[in-house]
């Protein structure tokens, strides 16, 4: 048996789908954020895998992932700051209550 690109891609896809499920179903904002991280991670993996299998000579996919990790960290930090702030003002982290800014 040979482990082809598909074998790496399918777990990544699965992780992404799990993230999608989590993001849509969970009401806790931190849980949503965790789902988001899962999705992001799945996508990162795709970059790396494609890079490795299709263009082994170059490193763009790796760099992309590198930057994505950095930005994900920043984004998480801001998101958590917002969540914490929201918790302070509303007393919970339930996303369904947050619709003041609709329309």
């Amino acid at each position: 048996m040979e482990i082809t690109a598909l074998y790496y891609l399918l777990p990544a896809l699965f992780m992404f789908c799990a993230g999608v499920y989590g993001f849509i179903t969970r009401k806790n904002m931190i849980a949503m954020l965790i789902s988001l991280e899962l999705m992001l991670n799945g996508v990162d993996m795709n970059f790396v895998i494609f890079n490795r299998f299709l263009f082994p000579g170059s490193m763009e996919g790796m760099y992309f992932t590198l930057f994505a990790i950095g930005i994900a960290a920043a984004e998480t930090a801001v998101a958590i700051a917002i969540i914490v702030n929201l918790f302070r003002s509303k007393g919970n982290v339930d996303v369904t209550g947050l619709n003041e800014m609709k329309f």
Partner: protein
Amino acid sequence: MESVGSIIMYAVVALTIVICSVLAVTTRKILRSATYLLFTLFATAAIYFMLDYEFLGGVQIAVYAGGIVVLFVFAILLTSRPGHDSEKLTSRSRRTGLVAAVATAIVCGWSLCSRSALMAGLPQMSNPDMKLIGARLLSSDAGGLLLPFEAVSVLLLACIIGAVVIGRRR
């Protein structure tokens, strides 16, 4: 043909990813969810190692597993009491989520499986050298990544300031 060891290794890592990611989004204890996320991230790092990107794997562990998950844990501790469960999911929202996830899986999976290029084996590649990575990252030549690097640094700075401003108690 791969060695049996690497196949086993792959199977473990892949299973970890699948199981832990599912658990991460289904468990009702939020702290557990963060823990499963940590496992998933580690497994991802393992994949990176298996694909010969050691530096990336290192970054993954250091930043993601080490940094972000810790942030999560702090945030969870700040926003919930221990033993406090998330609310039960309604069947409707579960159904929506499942539809979305399965549809994504089908569409993406189908499009992945229909590509024969993805059936190729692992080509040969020497491990990217740290020096090379660093030079490329800070080079302004063609293919150099100085500009995005700087942009990201500015972004990070902005995020730090933003996080401080937002998180500050008024």
